[in-house]
């Protein structure tokens, strides 16, 4: 599919710049050109289509769907959590809205986990760098982590750890505006512009670092490091992901050549999920509705689920 980019990179590196195949600089430069073109193409496509699908699932409609099918609330919340556009700054009104609609707390937590865990930018980057299989596994594992975490948190009987006002606020009624398909296309293009406009520089820097690793860092060094971290690789990756909130863009292109050279891919996926699902700013927002103990349980359960998912993935692949 991307042979034309390959040709273009060949043309620039070997014909225009006259570098020799096999030279380190040539390898690194070729990798940079090809990867940049491929990553941006796929990012555009994935963000565009995700935004288009998401435009059909505003939070208010999602709440209505889940509250109508309470028996299926858990898997439905995980699935819709992936499809509903959601910013962590809306976590508090979402929580209140779900509670008021009588959606079980397990399902509300599942939604809270699923929504950020499967992130469109991470999905686009995974698809460009590792292919469809890994991207689909990321969605599957994200949903599994959300269902499992939501179920466990629900079992911990969290009601007493949630601020009272959450259960008392009366929610008003609003109508979901229906918009035309043309308008949805316009909005999707807008979100591509917004997201890519925000992160392109990080992606370019990350591809640059990735190209350097690809061309200059020897394979046995990376294998040694991967081996040295051994069984602790996955939890280490999850802990490292917490402070890097929403910077999937600046991280994944660096990881790709590392994986090519021997870092296990489950470790990378666990890292990716941790970056988007566990973040300090989100914990601060959740503090408005939850006691610190519940946030600790939340972080602990989600973190552990991600670690387990990472191990399973490393074992299976």
């Amino acid at each position, binding site marked *: 599919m991307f042979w034309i980019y390959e040709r273009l990179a060949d043309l620039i590196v070997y014909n225009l710049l006259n570098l020799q195949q096999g030279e380190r600089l040539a390898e690194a430069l070729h990798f940079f050109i090809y990867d940049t073109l491929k990553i941006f193409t796929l990012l555009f496509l994935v963000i565009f289509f995700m935004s288009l699908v998401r435009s059909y699932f*505003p*939070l*208010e409609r999602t*709440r209505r769907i889940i509250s109508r099918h309470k028996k299926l609330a858990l898997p439905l919340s995980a699935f819709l959590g992936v499809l509903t*556009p959601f*910013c*962590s*700054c*809306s976590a*508090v*009104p*979402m929580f*209140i*809205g779900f509670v*008021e609609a009588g959606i079980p707390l397990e399902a509300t937590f599942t939604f809270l986990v699923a929504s950020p865990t499967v992130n469109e930018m991470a999905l686009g980057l995974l698809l460009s760098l590792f292919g469809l299989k890994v991207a689909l596994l990321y969605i599957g594992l994200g949903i599994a982590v959300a269902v499992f975490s939501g179920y466990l948190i629900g079992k911990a009987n969290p009601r007493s750890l949630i601020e009272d*006002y959450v259960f008392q*606020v*009366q*929610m*008003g*009624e*609003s109508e979901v505006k229906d918009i035309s398909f043309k308008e949805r296309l316009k*909005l999707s293009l*807008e*979100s591509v512009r*917004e997201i890519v406009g925000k992160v392109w520089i990080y992606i370019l820097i990350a591809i640059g670092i990735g190209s350097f690793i690809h061309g200059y860092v020897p394979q046995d060094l990376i294998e040694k490091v991967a081996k040295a971290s051994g069984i602790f690789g996955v939890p280490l990756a999850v802990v490292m992901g917490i402070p890097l909130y929403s910077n999937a863009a600046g991280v994944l292109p660096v990881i790709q050549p590392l994986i090519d050279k021997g870092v296990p891919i489950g470790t990378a996926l666990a890292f990716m999920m941790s970056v988007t699902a566990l973040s300090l*700013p989100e914990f*601060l*927002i959740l503090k*408005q509705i939850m006691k610190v103990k519940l946030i600790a349980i939340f972080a602990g359960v989600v973190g552990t689920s991600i670690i387990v998912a990472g191990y399973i993935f490393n074992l299976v692949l």
Partner: protein
Amino acid sequence: MKKVQVISASNCKNCEILYDVVSKIVKAKGIDAEVEKVLDVKEVVKFGVMTTPLLVVDGELKHAGTPLPSPQEIEEMIGG
């Protein structure tokens, strides 16, 4: 005098943007309105929505969530 409220969540970039744009429009067009930023999540759910920011003019919800309306649309909503 109109009462224009931008109801926001904490740590919400789009809320800041909307508040800035609204304030600028009111000032530039000389609209007789008082612009207020409300940082109270209970106010958000009162209008039956779960996404921020909200633009409320004289108690009536004009817009909720992202993408934000264009400056022209905002001007119409405020009724300048």
